């Protein structure tokens, strides 16, 4: 029989498929969905104020030549409470932070700011998640590094922890 090697094909296939199965079991499953908008310009939007006393947010407010952070948060979101002190630290380091409040009520946003402090320059209200979709954002909280020309440079998914503060400051410095 000339084609003796053919006998090994089924075993090789089995080993390949078995290997795939083991790979799927061993390698942890990452369900984070990153925005494909990183590297693109911010989408055009103009959101009304999320609460009294803080202005709303439009695309043109974020293209004034200065790099900044854009924080996606909500008063009902627990990790957003956890990241509040770290946003305050970023603000204390001279960072301008704009925000979008997702599906929130003005009185809830006001209560959130009273309780956890207000690191934000502007807060736009995204009631219908339209801007969240346009940004390619998949949840709260998320933080974007925005270049001075309004380009999305970096996306941080999840709450900002202590160890992320210097990394974000570095990204902002690099954006200058």
């Amino acid at each position, binding site marked *: 029989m000339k084609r003796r090697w053919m006998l090994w094909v089924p075993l090789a296939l089995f080993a390949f498929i078995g290997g795939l199965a083991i790979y799927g079991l061993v390698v942890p499953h990452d*369900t984070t*969905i*990153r*925005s*494909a*908008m990183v590297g693109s310009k911010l989408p055009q939007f103009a959101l009304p104020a999320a609460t009294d006393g803080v202005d709303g947010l439009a695309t043109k407010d974020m293209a004034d030549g200065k790099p900044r952070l854009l924080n996606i948060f*909500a008063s*009902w979101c627990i990790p957003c409470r956890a990241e509040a002190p770290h946003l305050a630290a970023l603000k204390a380091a001279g960072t301008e932070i704009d925000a979008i409040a*997702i*599906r929130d*009520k003005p009185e809830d946003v006001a209560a959130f700011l009273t309780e956890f402090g207000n690191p934000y320059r502007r807060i736009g209200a995204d*009631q*219908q*998640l*339209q801007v*969240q*979709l*346009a*940004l*390619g954002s*998949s*949840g709260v909280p998320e933080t974007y590094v925005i270049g001075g020309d309004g380009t999305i440079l970096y996306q941080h998914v999840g709450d900002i922890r202590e160890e992320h503060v210097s990394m974000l400051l570095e990204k902002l410095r690099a954006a200058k």
Partner: protein
Amino acid sequence: MKIVTILISFVLLTTPLQAQQDGPAPPLANEQLSDGRQEAAAAALMAKLRCIQCQGQSIADSDAPMAAAMRAEVRQRIAKGESPDSIRDWMIARYGQWVSFEPAMRGGGLFLWLAPALLLLAAAWFARGLFKRRRS
């Protein structure tokens, strides 16, 4: 009898748990378009887009606020006359190829589309060899 009344009152006294993210759903998230043909196009597309929040479900099946927002986006764009393909591309430009349940006809996706035909061809070739041997 008393126990039954008490049990029933328990049921009546409960209020449905308030959703964490309450508030009205965006327009057209849960209403059909008045034009039947447009609604059919929107429904077909919604069944092929993945919900970003629940990930395993299509936006047509999911009750998540994110899926409602995506349905609203799809219906509003269809109502404005945008084609389903261009809406799908808009979603892919934001969330990556992953958001579509239909793999693209290029790269690894092309292999997925062609795999059934390739396997059939391979099987035919294999069977042909077997039949030849029998005959001789």
